[in-house]
C-alpha cells in the first residue's frame, strides 16, 4: 500500500504548493483467469459427453476446405456401426446441416450470427437438444476459420483439422497455431493437387514439423479416398 505525497517548489516569485491529493493508491494482486469461463464450460461439456459414453470430434479448417464433405463421408461409413449426431457451426444458414441430414443422422445447426468460432457455451446449448443417451459419437463442425476456433476448447475428445490443396502451398506455415493441438489432419482435394501446382507431401512435411504427433491423411472426399484412414487416425475403428 502506498500513498501519494505532496511536494512544493519555488516558481518565479511565489511558491506554488502541490498538496497531496488525499487519495490512497493500492494494488489488488490477483490471478484472475479470463479464459476460465469457457474452459470450465468445456470441461462440463466433456463430462456430460463421457457420462453418456460418447466420443466427440471437433472438426476445424478454412471455409471451403471440405469439413462438411469429410464428415458426411465418415458418417456414411460409420453409421451402420455407430449411433452418430453432428453439430454444425456456421455464421448463418442450415446448408451444411441439411447436407449431413441426408445421411439420416440427427443434426443440430448452431448459427453464431457474427462470431467467427464456436464456443463451449454454444455447444452446451446444442448438447441440450440432442438425446445423448442414444449416441456413441458426435462430430462438431466448427465455423470455417483457421485462427479463432483453436483458441476456444469445446470439450471434445479430439481435434481434426481439414486443409485442402486448393488453399495453396502455405496453409500450414501461415497458420501453425491451428495444428498445435490437432490429433489428425486431413489434406483434402488431393485429386486437384496437380492442377493447383501444390505438393501435398510438402504440406504433410510442414504439419509434421509443427506438430509431429498429428496423424496426417491425404483425402479426396468426393471419391471417398482416404476416408477409412481418417477414421482409423481418430481411433474410431
Amino acid at each position, binding site marked *: 500500500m502506498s500513498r501519494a505525497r505532496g511536494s512544493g517548489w519555488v516558481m518565479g516569485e511565489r511558491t506554488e504548493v502541490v498538496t497531496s491529493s488525499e487519495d490512497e*493508491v493500492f494494488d489488488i494482486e490477483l490471478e484472475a483467469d*479470463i479464459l476460465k469461463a469457457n474452459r470450465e464450460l468445456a470441461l462440463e461439456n466433456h463430462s456430460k459427453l463421457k457420462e453418456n459414453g460418447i466420443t466427440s470430434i471437433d472438426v476445424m479448417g478454412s471455409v471451403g476446405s471440405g469439413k462438411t464433405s469429410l464428415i458426411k463421408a465418415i458418417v456414411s461409413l460409420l453409421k451402420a456401426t455407430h449411433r452418430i449426431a453432428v453439430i454444425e457451426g456456421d455464421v448463418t444458414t442450415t446448408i451444411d446441416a441439411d447436407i449431413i441430414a441426408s445421411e439420416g443422422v440427427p443434426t443440430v445447426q448452431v448459427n453464431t450470427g457474427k462470431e467467427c468460432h464456436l464456443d463451449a457455451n454454444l455447444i452446451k446449448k446444442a448438447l441440450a437438444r440432442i438425446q445423448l443417451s442414444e449416441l456413441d459419437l458426435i462430430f462438431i463442425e466448427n465455423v470455417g476459420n483457421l485462427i479463432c476456433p483453436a483458441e476456444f476448447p469445446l470439450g471434445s475428445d479430439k481435434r481434426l483439422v481439414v486443409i485442402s490443396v486448393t488453399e495453396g502451398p502455405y496453409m500450414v506455415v501461415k497458420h501453425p497455431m491451428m495444428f498445435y493441438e490437432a490429433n489428425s489432419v486431413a489434406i483434402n482435394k488431393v485429386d486437384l493437387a496437380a492442377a493447383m501446382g501444390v505438393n501435398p507431401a510438402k504440406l504433410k512435411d510442414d504439419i509434421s*514439423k509443427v506438430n*509431429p504427433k498429428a496423424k496426417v491423411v491425404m483425402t479426396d472426399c468426393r471419391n471417398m479416398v482416404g476416408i477409412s484412414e481418417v477414421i482409423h487416425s481418430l481411433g474410431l475403428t
Partner: protein
Amino acid sequence: MHELSLASTLVDTLLEYAPKNPDGKVLEVHLRVGKLRAISIEQLKFSYQVLAKDRFLKGSKLIIEETPAKTRCPKCGLKQDFAVADDSYHFTLPTLSCPKCRSPVELQGGDEVVITKVRIRSPKK
C-alpha cells in the same frame, strides 16, 4: 481476431471489484498474455479503451506482459523456449519437435490470459 470479446470479459471481471471500491478509480490493469494465444496486443488495448467507459475504469491503463511458451521433451528431458524451425521459406515455422532428439515435445504455458494486478485510487476516508 476476438480481442473485443476478450476485452469485454476483462471489463466484466474488473467491474466485479467496483462495488467494494465505490468511490475508487482503476489506474492500471496488469495482464499476463501467453505468446501462444492468437491475440493482437494492440487490438486488445484498443478494444479495452473502447469498452472501459464505466466511471470505475475510465482512463485506466492496460499494461500487458507477454509470457513465452516453453517446451519439454519427454524423451531426452530438454527444456527450452518454444523453438522455431529453420526452413527454406525465409519465414519462421514454430515446431513441436525436439531440436536435440527429434521426438515430439510437450508445450508448457504460453496459453494464459490472466489479470495479475489492479491498481486502484480511492479517496482517503
